[in-house]
């Protein structure tokens, strides 16, 4: 948590001291609007030399709006448009922040489930593949729907299909690692390969393609890519809802506390009658289901499923939980931290883009950031432990 606040602060400060970017907005003028040019003394003119213009006054139905000449790049009287230019902070502006949150949301949703897995002292490497397979199967279902299907049908169908696939995969992970007594690293490593294989094979065999698209628009622009105030917030909203529910389950339910108990001391958990196996299977299953949910949001937002969807997501997701303060030794971690961790990862990507760093450097910076974040967190823990 501390790490995240520090990084955000750093970026904000950095954003303030670097050259701002110019954001141009085109203001369409109503036919009835009257535009007057204003000089330095505040007098209105119809015509004025360019150097004399101090501002523009737009009057429409008695309503007056003033623009300073600094803000207006150009006034086109024939097209009746004003081009407004604003300098905005490179980092802190509405569309950039929503963009970061949106990009983060796809794997942040999965990170909520992964938090539970990591708290259990387990690991799930197959999340990226579960996400990919859910997306492909969900896309096949959506494609088969008529193009004019309403969202009231398309959304539940997609959710049901994607989440069923995810749930079954997660259940298989949990049941195998608990039932066979094999470390989840091995089981989910195997599942990662198997499921990714299926993700590629299925569209290839059935449609001879690498991507599936052609969904009802009610599902894409009508729901998951619906526009509000110039941004597309639906994936972000789903991420926030998932995080709230995840936080509630881990903090406020018996099941959640059992997850912590098992991660803290599995032997003691057995000695207090906690059904260790059942809790573990359930956590992996929920993680699978969340992969399905995330895949569904991805389908809706991008309107297509690619066979490489979710490639290397497992690393980003695990990194997000770890940056968010979860301990791979188990017993510690927060959902909120994981979501913020996901945002941090996206933030780093975004920052590098803003500062026009070649994207090839992303991995280097990202990897270093993970290590730094964890070292800072550990140091903090150690200091706290000493104080106690």
């Amino acid at each position, binding site marked *: 948590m501390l790490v995240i606040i520090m990084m955000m602060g750093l970026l904000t400060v950095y954003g303030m001291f670097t050259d701002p970017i110019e954001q141009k907005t085109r203001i369409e003028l109503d036919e009835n609007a009257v535009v007057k040019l204003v000089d330095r003394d505040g007098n209105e003119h119809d015509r004025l030399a360019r150097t004399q213009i101090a501002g523009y006054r737009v009057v429409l139905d008695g309503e007056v709006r003033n623009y300073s000449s600094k803000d207006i790049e150009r006034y086109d009287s024939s097209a009746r448009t004003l081009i407004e230019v604003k300098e905005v902070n490179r980092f802190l502006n509405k569309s950039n922040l929503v963009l970061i949150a949106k990009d983060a949301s796809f794997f942040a949703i999965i990170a909520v489930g992964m938090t539970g897995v990591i708290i259990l002292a387990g690991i799930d490497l197959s999340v990226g593949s579960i996400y990919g397979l859910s997306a492909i199967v969900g896309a096949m279902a959506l494609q088969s729907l008529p193009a004019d299907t309403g969202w009231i049908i398309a959304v539940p169908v997609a959710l049901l299909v994607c989440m069923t696939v995810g749930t079954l995969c997660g259940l298989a992970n949990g049941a195998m690692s608990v039932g066979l007594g094999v470390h989840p690293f091995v089981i989910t490593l195997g599942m990662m390969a198997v499921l990714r294989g299926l993700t590629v094979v299925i569209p290839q065999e059935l449609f001879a393609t690498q991507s599936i698209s052609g969904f009802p628009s009610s599902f894409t622009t009508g729901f998951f890519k619906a526009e509000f105030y110039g941004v597309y917030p639906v994936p972000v909203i789903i991420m926030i809802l998932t995080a709230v529910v995840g936080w509630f389950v881990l903090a406020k339910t018996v099941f959640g*506390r059992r997850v912590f108990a098992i991660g803290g001391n599995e032997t003691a958990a057995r000695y207090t009658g906690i059904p260790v196996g059942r809790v573990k299977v359930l956590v992996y299953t929920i993680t699978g289901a969340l992969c399905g949910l995330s895949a569904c949001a991805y389908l809706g937002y991008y309107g297509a499923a690619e066979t490489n969807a979710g490639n290397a997501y497992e690393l980003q997701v695990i990194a997000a939980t770890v940056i968010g303060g979860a301990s791979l030794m188990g017993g*510690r971690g927060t959902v909120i931290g994981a979501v913020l961790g996901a945002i941090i990862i996206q933030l780093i990507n975004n920052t590098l883009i803003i500062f026009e760093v070649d994207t090839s450097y992303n991995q280097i910076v990202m990897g270093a950031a993970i290590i730094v974040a964890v070292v800072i967190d550990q140091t903090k823990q150690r200091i706290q432990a000493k104080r106690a």
Partner: protein
Amino acid sequence: MSDADTPILIATNISKRFGHTQALDDVSVSFRPGEVHALMGENGAGKSTLGKVIAGLHAQNTGTVVLDGRELIPGSLDDAFQAGIRIVHQELAQCPNLSVAENLSLHDMPKKRFTVDFAEMERRAAKLVHQLDPNIDVTRPLGYLSPGRRQICQIAASLDQDESGKTQAKVIVFDEPTSSLSISEALVLMDITRELAAMGLTIIYVSHRMSEIFTCCDRVSVLRDGRFVATNVVRDIDEPTLVEQMLGRRITTPDAKHASSPIAEAIEETLADAGATHDSSAVDAKKIMLSVRNLRSPGKLRDISFDLHPGEILGVGGLVGAGRSELMDAIFGLDRLASGEILVDGEPVPAKHPQSAIDAGIGYVPEDRRNQGLFFNLGIDENILAPIMARLAKPMGIRSLDKELDAVESRVEKFQIKTASLRETTPGELSGGNQQKLLIARWMMKGTRVLLLDEPTRGIDIGTKTEVYKLINQAASEGDAILLVSSEMPELLALSDRILVMGEGQIKGELVGDEMTQTNILTLATSEEQHAGATSM
């Protein structure tokens, strides 16, 4: 033979503290070349600690260890090793995945340019191992060998030689070498011990098995409560005298239950002061609360049957490794391989799962607080409520914080657990005594009728101990049936209404009334053959 009578190793005025525990108090013992010298005592008498101080595993607080006239650096395993002291650990400290040969040369692998010279390694290992047991294949992974052979390999490792083929070890400390071995394996090991002594090595043999002392040792030094009692020549001493030295008093009256031990007296006194003296008349002998029938578990328990009445405290005595904790685990449903029947109040406990045991009214405070009991990442409240959080919860498994707070507050108050906060404080911040009280409090809920307590006062101070005794008595007087495992004899004798003595995974005998004495417990516990009066129902 004046040469053989001159000590090679002299430990003088050794004292060692662990926190509040005085493990060794001004102990002086000397060892001669070529002898097998046993260190004997009850659990916790300090015999193992002395062995480890000599081997440099522990640094003594005061005192010196002198080998061949040179004083060793306290707590330096390296220095002790250089001087020629080896230790064969109680727990087999080896890598089971590596071959015997690799295990034997872990500290000094022979190299051939850049690679390990396996042929040389195996040759060296074979030379060492085959002098003890020619049938061991040094190329096999160590984990594939029987415990006895693994033990032999560990001994072989301590016989490392220099370039001229001379054994460098002068003194070998055997720390409970037979604790994980079968009887026949133990016999082989004792033969080897004699052979090593015949080679001129000094063997320090830490053990509590009476028969082994008489089979293979020359002299025996007895420790009690961290103090040196006496060094005896084994030939000149008999078993009762040795037991007497271990217990520290003459066995004159058969009724020694309430006498002589300061701890026992302290227990009785404080309990009387608190008005909580355990009253055996509270036992309802007509009813049976817990009934264990023919409980077996492969390699752990052999046909155990007994009954436990409401209000009764049934003590379980025995030495480390007797199978007492295993019995508790099996009753609580933690041993999947166990067979046999467990009935609570006449009702059989259905499944071999702790949840069924808890539902039937069984509570279990395990032996190892840190590893089996506490959640160090959770608060005091959740640590106490772990078994019943689900029972208190609202529908959908949502925690009921009000009910939880009530349940925790009343128990923290009743048990006087000293904690800064119920929610924020974690068990790691509590004292050992408070941790232990927390674990007992965990089971003080409605519906618990049988309490399994495994070493409930281990490692806590005397003040908290009496508090725990009071709580145990209180639970019994309220009609709970209590099964109490304790290695502290006075505690066991003072609290129990009856005592079962276990050894080698079975019940060696049952002691009631005047039979409940330290001598009888120790005699039964160390007896090799099954006792005539064993309760084999």
